[in-house]
């Protein structure tokens, strides 16, 4: 019986032969994306796209550990937060520009990841998941209490951002959203590129072997502890970069926004909704989730329903939706995850592929 994952594999490996057309499509897509800030004047649209890029980076980063290596970490807020806090502390209290601070964040994250990995990877399955949650919580509580370093619950607000200079030429002073757009776009593309590289390498095969059966992998000359830690470090580094980017872009962080369980769950959700263990899954997941949560937050969904004449603005239902739907995005998230897990265990990407393949066959 050809299972859904059979179809998934076929699609992924079919990238081997005719590469020219997809490459052209990819190049033109990237070019279009790169041109967006020139034509789109709406800062709100740019804002949503920047958030989407950050989400793509987070989701793809998690995917390397969770999707390919099968280690479902629900504690990636730890790496997100370590990146964000290192960059922000250096920026605000030591006046070190974020494009240097970010690398310090990466360094701190690698150390963190190796310590966490050496402890948590002794555990398997649900026990690993619980340990990863606990570790992230430790970081949140620590950030809350190390007031001298982190400002505690007050958080850190960026008061001035030094301009990015190349020699004496000012490249950008970060007063608009455009530089963040390009930074996000380039980083997101880089992560996708790295994921692709991993998938088509010895590393990727070893990761997947561990995901499929750790004991069998071990008997075939694979050191599971070593390769899990490699996957974790790659994953944590990109999560940390996403954290730095997010922190500098938003300009404010506190333990509740960057170290919270919400962040960890959101990261996993992006990957699961899109389709784990695939290159494009987290991209699709990020687009869907960011768009959806923004649509709910800004009441766009309610307004659309009213505009379409489906709901009367002054009726009881209309008033209820207006008042409550914007607060309900967490609830909708939850419902979406349940639907995806029940009906599309391969994520939106896997689901779409299944339909396409079915149509082709018959």
């Amino acid at each position, binding site marked *: *019986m*050809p*299972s859904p*994952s*059979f179809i998934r*594999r*076929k699609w992924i*490996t079919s990238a081997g032969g005719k590469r020219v057309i997809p490459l052209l499509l990819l190049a033109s897509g990237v070019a279009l994306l790169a041109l967006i800030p020139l034509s789109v004047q709406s800062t709100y649209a740019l804002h949503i796209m920047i958030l989407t890029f950050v989400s793509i980076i987070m989701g793809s980063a998690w995917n390397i550990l969770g999707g390919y290596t099968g280690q479902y970490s629900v504690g990636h807020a730890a790496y997100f937060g370590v990146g964000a806090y290192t960059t922000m502390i250096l920026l605000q209290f030591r006046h070190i520009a974020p494009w240097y601070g970010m690398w310090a964040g990466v360094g701190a994250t690698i150390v963190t990841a190796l310590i966490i990995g050496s402890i948590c990877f002794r555990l398997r399955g649900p026990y690993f998941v619980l340990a990863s949650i606990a570790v992230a919580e430790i970081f949140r509580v620590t950030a809350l209490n190390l007031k001298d370093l982190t400002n505690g619950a007050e958080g850190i607000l960026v008061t001035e951002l030094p301009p990015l200079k190349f020699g004496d030429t000012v490249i950008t002073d970060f007063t608009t959203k455009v530089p963040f757009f390009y930074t996000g776009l380039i980083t997101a593309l880089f992560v996708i590129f790295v994921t692709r590289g991993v998938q*088509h*390498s*010895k590393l990727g*095969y*070893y990761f*997947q*072997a561990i*995901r*499929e*059966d750790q*004991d*069998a*992998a*071990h*008997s*075939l*000359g*694979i*050191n*599971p502890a070593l390769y899990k830690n490699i996957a974790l470090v790659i994953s944590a580094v990109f999560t940390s970069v996403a954290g730095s980017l997010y922190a500098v872009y938003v300009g404010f962080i506190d333990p509740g926004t960057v170290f919270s369980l919400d962040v960890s769950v959101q990261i996993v959700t992006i990957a699961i909704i899109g389709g784990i*263990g695939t290159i494009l899954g987290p991209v699709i997941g990020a687009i869907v989730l960011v768009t959806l949560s923004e649509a709910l937050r800004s009441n766009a969904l309610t307004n659309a329903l009213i505009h379409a004449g489906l709901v009367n603005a002054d009726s009881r239902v209309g008033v209820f939706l207006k008042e409550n739907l914007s607060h309900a995005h967490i609830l909708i998230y939850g419902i979406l995850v349940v639907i995806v897990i029940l009906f599309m265990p391969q994520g939106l990407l896997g689901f779409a592929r299944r339909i396409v393949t079915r149509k082709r066959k018959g």
Partner: protein
Amino acid sequence: MAILEIRHVSKFFGGLAANSDVSFEVEEGSIVGLIGPNGAGKTTLFNCITGYYAPSKGDVVFRGLRMNGLQPDKVCRLGMVRTWQKVRPLTNLSVLENVMVGALCRTNSLFEARRMAQEQLRVVRLDQKGALLAGALPIGERKKLEVARALATRPKLLLLDEVMGGLNPAESEELIQLILEIRKKGITQMVIEHDMKAIMRMSQNIVVLNSGEKLAEGAPEEIVSNPRVIEAYLGAEV
């Protein structure tokens, strides 16, 4: 020359001795059969040999190297690989990719690994099924996939844990031929099997385990006429 020496190996789980004071040698190039009733400690011994357990007492010496406490991945790199009684295919990878994972133990190049994997798939006659998902294979072919994947790691010594379990007679016969073919390539094999006829045909030497202890060792014809073995298998005469 002995490629593997088991020296007074014991393995305790709490108070239970799964193996106690087992000693024997495996001659290079031979096929050694390991038999015994259920619970005799055959699989435990495999686990002690391949690094999944550390023996509580005694030594496992492979090609002159003491292996105790070496992790399975190191054991595999040194040239000793096992298959699993309950097959463990990497279900969401293709058949070819499963074998490639084994081959990647000897090469860093995917291209080379793919070539080596195809070669091993031909040996077990699964070369037509390389693109299928491993999870889609029926049990007989999963067993052959286990063997191909293990062979791809280029072992000197192959340990087969009941590869014929659950197979029909035609499939078993195919595997017997395969095991004899592998021997011709100079790969030493140690085989756990319940099918006595198959073991008699393949092995040069048979080791019988019972309740964790070595009951007998010898050529197939000696083993079938050994009264202690008959007693262990059929019960004592009244």
